[in-house]
């Protein structure tokens, strides 16, 4: 048994402990929240640009940094190449940096994240574009308005696109030859496509997949929805944007342009969406294409280059990838996505978004202009790891070594089909993408499961779109 009475000395000691703890708690409570920026040396006054790491290797970083230094010796630049497996992973890491108080000034953002960044984090570039209109005239003349429109949100421009990739069809020439098939015509149809896959299947072994695709927002089911004249979410355009179109584009090119895309009501149960899914399910059932979960871009180059895949949708980025994998320029080729109800195709673009939290906005704008310059992009995209946003960069010389023979397809997807549209990517894009991937897997299990899976997709999409990001 212990003494319940405290001695005066003990009481004084506990009192001192309590006072100390209260003082510490008070100090902590009154302190401004500590962030990563408080770490000494973290903020060295540089303009910080966050890029998607795998796309920006050391060589690209050096090119950007040294080139920018020559033009703006007074601005210190730091490229922060964030390692991420895909765009959603990249955005997650950028948001973590923002939460940690170490937000970059500029972030490389693809179509998937344009509206999220514009709505929550981005600064419209309108005033700068108007101010430096003369300097930018040459840029806009060289860049297709569809790409620019995909970087607009509610009438304002948030990025200058520097690259894009349309979902075109790559074909393995060795497989075509084996099947005794000709290279398809530019206006080939969905039925021509199916026939080609059947010919390929007949002439190849059991370890062969005629059509390989990856279940994702770009290049998965969505291009088939575009071809069937429908989309995952109802599509419309925001008003505004005339300030840009009237200043930089001739009447023919600015017709029908608005202030950026709006993706609103989910329409997964639309008859044409169901028709597109039913078509893909029939291809799966017939053994003409990979199942959605089996489709994985990571080993695609390997199976395509060794003739185990005949056709796959990919953009200009694949020319460099296949070349690096050892494929000769004439061993593969590219054609437009096949026609169904329309031959409207899908693309995704990317550029630099300026964050509201940046304290170096003028310097950041100078970097945005620098990054969109032709000479910068010429140095940056030497290996054809993407399709440059500037039309003038797509030349026979550029594709002589890597191929493909029909390299004109890359930019002509925009020029010859000006209604070609961007990835449907509202601010809630992460959840929309997850819902799409999840239910696509279930829908394509069999033709009977298409309709129930699309009903569930519709319900989940409605829930996702109602949520505020």
């Amino acid at each position, binding site marked *: *048994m*212990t*003494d319940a009475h405290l001695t005066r000395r003990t009481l004084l000691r506990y009192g001192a402990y309590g006072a100390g703890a209260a003082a510490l708690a008070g100090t902590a409570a009154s302190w401004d929240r500590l962030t990563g920026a408080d770490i000494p040396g973290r903020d060295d006054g540089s303009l910080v640009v966050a890029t998607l790491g795998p796309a920006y290797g050391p060589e690209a970083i050096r090119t950007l940094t040294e080139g920018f230094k020559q033009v703006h010796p007074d601005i210190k630049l730091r490229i922060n190449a964030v390692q991420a497996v895909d765009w*959603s992973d990249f955005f*997650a890491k950028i*948001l*973590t940096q*923002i*939460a940690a108080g170490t937000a970059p000034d500029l972030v490389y953002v693809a179509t998937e994240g344009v509206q999220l960044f514009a709505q*929550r*984090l981005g600064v419209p570039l309108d005033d700068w574009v108007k101010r430096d209109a003369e300097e930018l005239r040459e840029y806009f003349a060289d860049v297709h308005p569809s790409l620019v429109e995909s970087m607009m949100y509610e009438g304002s421009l948030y990025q200058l696109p520097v690259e894009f990739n349309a979902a075109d069809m790559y074909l393995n020439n060795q497989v075509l030859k084996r099947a005794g098939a000709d290279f398809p015509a530019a206006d080939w149809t969905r039925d021509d496509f199916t026939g080609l896959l059947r010919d390929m299947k007949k002439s190849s072994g*059991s*370890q062969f*997949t005629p059509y*390989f695709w990856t279940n994702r927002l770009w290049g998965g089911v969505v291009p088939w929805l575009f071809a069937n004249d429908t989309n995952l979410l109802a599509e419309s355009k925001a008003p505004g944007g005339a300030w840009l179109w009237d200043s930089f584009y001739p009447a023919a090119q600015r017709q029908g342009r608005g202030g950026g895309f709006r993706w609103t009501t989910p329409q997964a149960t639309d008859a044409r969406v169901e028709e597109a899914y039913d078509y893909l399910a029939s291809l799966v059932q017939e053994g003409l294409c*990979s*199942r*959605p*979960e*089996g489709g*994985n871009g*990571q*080993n695609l180059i390997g*199976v395509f280059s060794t003739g*185990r895949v005949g056709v796959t949708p990919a953009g200009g980025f694949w020319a460099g990838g296949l070349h690096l994998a050892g494929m000769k320029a004439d061993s593969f080729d590219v054609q437009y996505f096949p026609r169904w109800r329309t031959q409207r195709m899908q693309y995704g673009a990317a550029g630099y978004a300026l964050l509201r939290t940046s304290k170096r906005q003028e310097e950041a704008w100078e970097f945005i202009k620098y990054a969109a310059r032709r000479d910068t992009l010429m140095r940056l995209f030497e290996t054809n790891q993407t399709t440059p946003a500037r039309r003038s960069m797509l030349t026979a010389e550029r594709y002589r070594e890597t191929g493909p023979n029909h390299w004109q397809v890359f930019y002509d997807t925009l020029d010859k089909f000006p209604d070609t549209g961007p990835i449907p990517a509202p601010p809630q894009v*992460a*959840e929309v993408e*997850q819902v799409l*991937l*999840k*239910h696509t*897997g*279930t829908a394509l*299990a069999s033709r009977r499961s298409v309709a129930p*899976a699309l009903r569930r997709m519709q319900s989940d999409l409605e829930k996702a779109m109602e*949520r505020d*990001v």
Partner: protein
Amino acid sequence: MTNTQIPAVRPKQPAAQPAPAPGPSTRDRGTRLLATLFLAPTIVGIVVFTVVPIVGSVVLSLFHWNVIDDPRFAGAANYREVFTDSTVLVSFGNTLVFMVFAVALQLLIALVLALAVNGRMPVWLRSVFRSAFFFPLVLSAASISVVMKYLFNQDFGVVNWLLGLVGVAPVPWLTSENAAMATVILVYVWQQFGFSFLLFVGGLNNIPKEVHEAASLDGATGLRKHLSITLPLLSPTLLVASVVGIINALQVFEQPYVLTNGGPGDATRTVVMVIYESAFEQLRFGEASAVGVLLFVLIMAVTALQFRLSRRFVHYQ
């Protein structure tokens, strides 16, 4: 000494007072201080990296927060959302199914192999087996899963290619709702059973040989000895292995994330995957924290239940 020295009548003593508790000696105080100093880094580590995040998660679960805007108080809204979200509920079901099969299989394989390795075998061969079984555990789960994804690919995987050589049609290892969970469990168990295996090898070595010898003299067979001697004496090790196994299994993430990304549909989506997706992909940190808190409660409950049940089944020498 004589009695005469004792006074006949004792002087009146005051009422007996309890002796004051002896204070710690200087030596004791030194020992305590030293012990506190040694424990301090661990205590600080637990507080900073375990207690604070747990409390932080509980607090965050009461707010709506998307990283970008300031947090807004939500009360129990995040918990209501969790209980009405079919994906979350399915993920809890998947995780429990995963836990049951993964842990049972893992313990069974580890026990059988530990008994086999503990039998008559050259020492060098025993070392080879021990290293081989433990090796997958030191590899990164994500890297293993990437490799396994290639091996189990329905169209181009080595596993189906090998099966094809003996006339078996391609198995949809990762693309069928029925097969995907089984494949994820298989990959997980292959990587994890080495830990339980090592525990069992240690536990078997601690069982005195005399007990087995005495049983042999009494005429007990191999199976009887395992059932009546080995298993009861190994029960404390089994308890540890199952507690650790269940806690790990309830937190599984890398294997299903890399192998199937939770699909097909939600067939292999686990609770930790939902937490990751809600927080870092959909920017719903409050809801993710609510799911995290529920998982924490589930783990605590299952572990407590195990210890409770262990009173009946665990025998200490």
